[in-house]
Structures are given as C-alpha cells and as structure tokens.
C-alpha cells in the first residue's frame, strides 16, 4: 500500500532532463548554485527565473503538486522576508506605525535571498525528479573518483549514498503507515495545544526510529552475508560523456557564468 510520494522523488518520464547524463546534471546544479549566489540584485536576476521556468517545462514537473508539498516552507520564507524588511528602530524608509517601518534596502535583500532559495530548490527538484537514485549515486561516485587516489573510500561513500537515497521513500512510507495506525488508536494530530501535538508525534517517531534501526541492522546483516566489506573497493565506471551531454554541459556552464557577469555590468 503506497501512501505518499515524497517530495522530489523520481518520476519515470521520458523527458530531455531524464535522458541527460546524471554527472552533467549534478555539475550544472552546482554551477547554478554558485551562479545564483554570484548574481546580485539587478534586472538580470530574472534570467534565473526564466531558466527555472524553462527547465520545469522541459522536465514536465508537476508544479502544482510540488507547491502544495512546499506550503510549510512558505512560512519560513515569509518570515525571512519580514525579518529583513521590517525596521523596528525607526530608520525604515516607509513608516507604518510609530517606530515600525519598512526598510526598502532590507526588503530587496530579503526578496533576493528568498528568490535564490526558491530557484535553487526548483532546480534541485528538476534534477531529483528526473534522475533515479542509483544514477545519482553512480554519478557522485564518478565525480568523486579522483579523491580515491588520496585514500578517500569513494566506493563506500557511493554505497552509503545509494542506501540513504533508497531509505527516503521507506522512511516516508513507514511514517505515514504508523501515523494512520496511531490515528486509529485515537491520536489527534491536528488539534490541541503545542505540547499535546508534539507529544502525539512521539507516538509516531518512537516506533519509526525503532523500526528503522531494526531494518538497518537486518540490512547490514544481509550485506555481510553477501560478503560485503571484503572487496578491493574498485569503482563502478560510467564511461565518457556522450557528445550531446558534453555540449549541454558547456552551454550550461556558459549560462552560469554569463548571468552573474551580465548582472555586474548592467
């Protein structure tokens, strides 16, 4: 019985981002992160919005469903914006009431911070929803493989990463299962004061953590039974980039450099 689809989980769709090499996607996501933060407050910043909208369309991302899942985050973002915009010591440019006013420079700063978070989150969702967990894990291992020469256990990191990715849907499914069970025992998760609500979540978290530990232990035993930990640790190789992926990488990197540079000169 499947109850939820956790945010950002892989959706099997034949789209351009899904066909792209996972290494390119990870590198471009990193480059975008740097690029978004390097782009200052200017009209050029809207280029990132265009990039995000374009990629969401290419990946055929279910935007409405993601927005619903992100509703709780909106509160934190609104708080960030308010914390930056409100001036309580009377130095605000637009006075509201007494010493309380709006600081336009602060508001702009807050708006930019929120916009950066939203754009990066959107881009990360495009990557995660178009890439299977093993592709992600293999790509990370492949990108980290130069570190193996320095004695970093890259193969183990890769396995840990792929197990962690595999456990995300398990955790979310298990938690909704336990939540249903406790609701049938009369727990009310939606009403009551803060203390009651937090303590009602204990009835979900305790069994969830216990069962995950048990699972992890059994998984560890099964891995040991299959002789894990005795191999020479050689890595899965992914082969060279295909020309099309290489071209996408070059174009993408150029965009990530061009936008911040333009923002500086416009």
């Amino acid at each position, binding site marked *: *019985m*499947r*109850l939820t*689809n956790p945010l950002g989980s892989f959706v099997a769709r034949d789209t351009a981002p899904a066909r792209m090499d996972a290494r390119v996607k990870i590198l471009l996501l990193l480059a975008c992160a740097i690029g978004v933060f390097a782009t200052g407050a200017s009209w050029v910043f809207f280029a990132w919005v265009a990039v995000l909208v374009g990629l969401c369309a290419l990946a055929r991302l279910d935007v409405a469903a993601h927005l619903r899942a992100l509703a709780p985050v909106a509160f934190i973002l609104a708080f960030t914006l308010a914390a930056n915009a409100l001036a309580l010591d009377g130095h605000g440019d637009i006075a509201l009431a007494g010493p309380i006013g709006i600081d336009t420079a602060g508001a702009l700063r807050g708006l930019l911070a929120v916009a950066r978070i939203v754009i990066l989150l959107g881009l990360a969702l495009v990557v995660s929803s178009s890439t*299977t*967990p*093993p592709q992600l894990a293999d790509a990370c291992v492949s990108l980290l493989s130069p570190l193996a020469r320095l004695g970093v256990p890259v193969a183990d990191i890769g*396995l840990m990463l*792929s*197990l962690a*990715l*595999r456990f995300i*849907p*398990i955790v979310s499914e*298990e938690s909704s*299962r*336990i939540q*249903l*069970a*406790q*609701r*049938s*025992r*009369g*727990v*009310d998760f939606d009403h009551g004061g803060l203390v009651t609500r937090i303590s009602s979540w*204990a*009835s979900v978290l*305790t*069994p969830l953590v*216990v*069962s995950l530990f048990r*699972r992890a232990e*059994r*998984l560890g*035993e*099964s*891995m*040991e*039974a*299959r*002789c*894990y*930990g*005795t*191999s*020479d640790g*050689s890595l899965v190789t992914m082969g060279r980039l295909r020309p099309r992926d290489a071209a996408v990488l070059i174009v993408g990197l150029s965009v990530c450099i061009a936008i911040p540079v333009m923002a500086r000169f416009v």
Partner: protein
Amino acid sequence: MLIATDVTARYSPDAPRALDGVSLSVRPGEVVSLIGANGSGKSTLGALLVGMRLADTGRIEVDGCDPARDAASRREVRRRVGFVRQHPFDQLVSTVVYDEVAFGPRNLGARGDELRSRVTDALARVGLEGYERRDTTALSGGEQQLLAFAGVLAMQPSYLVLDEASSMLDSSARPRHRALVRALADDGLGIVQITHDPLEVLASDRAVVLEAGRIRFDGSPLELVLSERSLWDATVVASPCVDALRAVCALGYQACAPVDLDGVMSWLEDALRGSCVDAQAGATVLARMRAALLGDGRAPRPQGASAIDLLSVCYSYDRDQRALDGVSVNVHAGEVLLIAGASGSGKSTLSCVAAGLIAPDAGSVEVGGARVRTGDVGVAFQRPEDQLFCESVADELAFAPRNLGCDEGEVDARVRRAADLVGLPSELMDRYPFDLSGGQARRVAVASVLSLGARIYMLDEPTAGLDAAGRSAMHELARTLAGEGLAVAVISHDIEEWLAVADRVALMSAGRVVWGGSPGALVDDPGAFARARMEEPQAVALVRRLAGELEGGAR
C-alpha cells in the same frame, strides 16, 4: 556436507541457552525443513549455519571449512552457504535489479564478463530473465523474494539457509516458491528451510523439530505427520491437506518423501475407479477434508444487523490508478467476514477507508446509519507490533481509551478486558514492549487496538509470521469477538487458513469486490478464484477434485 556438531549458543550470560547441544548434517541435494515454535532456536541455528554468528561451543563445518578458524574461513562459509530471510525488503541493497544481483559477486571480486554472466544465470534460475534494468522497489513482494534468491545464487553457493523465506508471500506465490526450492535441490544445493508451512514441510526430504534449543525429532516428514501426530499438530500450521494425507494413508496408500499431494489424490482416484477403495470410504475422506477446511460442524451463528456499510467507495492514490473502484461491502454484528485477494487488490486501503482514516473520493462509509468517525472502527494493521512505543505494556493498552478521554476507572476496565481477550498474563503488564518476543508483541499490539472498545474491528493479516500456537490463538480471538456480538473483518491473502473461522467471504481484485458468499459456497464455486485472479488454494482444489470423482463414480 553442512555439519553442525553439538553446538550451543546463548544471547547473554544469564539467558537460557538458545541452542543446547544441537547436531545436524545436510547433504548436497537435500531439502531439510527446520520447524518449531517461535523462540525454539531455529533462527539462531540458521545464523550459525551461514556464519553470521559463531557457536559458543561445538563446531560448524561446511565441506571442511570451519567459520570459527579465521576471518577468511568465515567469509568462505558465507559464500558457500547462501542466506535468504523473511522480508525481501531488508535484503535489497540497490534499486536496480542488475546491481542488486551483482552486489555479492562484486564483493567476491567478479568483474566484467564473468560478473555479467553470473547475474544473467542467477536471474534465469529464479525465472526473472530480462529483469536486469527494472526498479527493485516496483517489483511485487513475490518477485522481490525471487530477486533475493538470485542475489544469493550469483555467489554460487553449495547450500542455502531460508529463514521463513516464504512467510511474507501471498498464497499464489507459494507454489512457485516450493517449486524453486525443489529445482535448486535437484541442481545439487543442500537446503535448510525454516518454516511453519505444512506443504513446505511435506515437500522436503527431512524434517527436524527444535524444541527449547534441542532437537526433538529428526526424520522423514511422513513419519512425523503419520506417527508423531501430536508433535506435528503442535509445531506445524494446520492444513486440510494434512488431514487428507492421513486419511488416504489409512486407506492403504504407501507415501514416500517428498510427498506429492496431487499424486496422493491420483492414487485415491485410481483406487476408487478400480474399486480397491469403496465410495463410502472416499466420501469419508471428502467429509473430513471439508470439515477441516470449513470448520468442524460449526452451527451457523445468528446474524445481527449490519454494523458497517461501505457504499460504492472509490479511492485513488494518484490519477493513474484506482486503489478502490466502487466497493460495496458490509459487515454484520456477530460475524467474521474474510476479505481476501492477491497483493495489491486494495484490501489494506479498504481497511483505512472503512475506519475513516482516509476519506473516499466517492461513495460513503456508514456506521449505524451515520458517517464513520475515527474510533468507530478499530484497525490492527499489518505487523501491528511496529506501532508500539510506550514504556510498559499496560500504558500501551491504556493509550487508546485515554485518547478517547475515558476516566481512569473506564480505562482500567478496558485494559483488563483487552488483556483477557488476547490472553495476556498480568505479569506481562509491567514489561517493556520492545523486550517481548514476536508472538507476545503481536498480542500486545492487537490488545492495544481492542482496548479502543469499538463495535467493529478490522484485522489486517493478523497471523503473518506467527507459529501454529500463535495462529490458533488469533483464530480463536476472531471468533470470540464475533461471539460477543462485534463485527469482525479479517483481511488476508491466505484463504485456506481462515475459511474455517469466517462466516462470509468477500474476494477482491483490482479494487473491486468480485465474489461474495459463504465459505462453503466458495469451495463449491469453480470460477470464484479465477474471477479474483487468485490461484486456488491446494486444499480447495483437492476437495473439488475428489468431489468430482465421487460424483462421476456415482453416475
């Protein structure tokens, strides 16, 4: 040979020995069933045989290799003795089938073409050819378990230890499991299967009964089923097939291990046709099987009013697929309704909707004419012991009535009643729930739902993973609840087990109820299981076959 010589093991210095001087040997090509009650030491012995644990005293030897010698020997034992466990999910390390099967051989150093051919061969042996690129999490439970077999076979073991490897499979995946075990043994693998399933025991070459860490019986399963009746009945889950086997053997059939039940029935048919056995004796066999399958001469209970009504209920998790597609079903006060169907037919979703935990997209759920509220229906989900969280058993049982706002006197009364219903002794009430054994934890978890004091209960696979004694306690519980005038729905994929307990059966397939009627009518309707896209349970098939033969003979 896989040999255990006088092994002992205990989990802590002050605990009793989990194994107390056990000796066992398994030949290549032999299937040995390891049976016994929960806590008798079966799994511990399994863990010793695969080199996961070392024996405190005594010795394990796998074709001359002793896991206690050094780390390299232990690793070699782990390679030579493959290990498949209960939950397929706990054994999968990858989300892609190819990587999953390649995990073991990769750890052994296999690369390139050798790795590829090992993976392809292993997948072919379990019947999953062409699955290489599939997503492991999207496979059915039965396929995941076959995949776990493939992952172990790719390491080219000489022996296999199966720790209740079939217990999470639905009944339609079991014949395939038994056939796979036999085929692997025919290829020369020695197999130790820990099981409660009578058909698996009958299909093996040898049966070993463990009791409190010692071997109580080691011999042919036939000798166990025919000569050691009470020991068999106490350790293996009851099955009408066993009653049939015993009755036919009493008529002169010379059985040999492993038992082929279709062969037994063919012998009886031939004997009836050749008049070696008269029709009267054949009818007696049939009557005994029907009695075992449908419950011994149980009087039909007076049926009360309808306690819960589901009317054309629809529900979907996403746009593509309906989990429930217009289900109408009701449960009367004082009856046990069996809701059966293959995995994924919508049974568990149905219980959530019926309990008011998820709202249906269309249709309605009514309890006594009003829309259902949470608390009207008590649901014991699958593996209910996974939702325990309190400091003591008593708190666990008191949790639901306290949530409902009962005063302490009422809470006390409900706790005591629930404890009585499942037979929890009062000295257990102060124990920490996480320290309990599997069977006890299940009883506590079910009691913690019963303390809700609802008039309607839904039990989702209440006997999964329990031993023979635990199962009959659950059967009795369902009957007791119904006897007190409550409405009880049991959700299970194991029809054979529940026919004798249920008053009515509803078969589900693809989110719909496709068949409804009494257990007797189900056994007599040849098309019922096909309509639910389920494999007919073997006992039902045998009953119908014999009935057909007797009818044909009478004409």
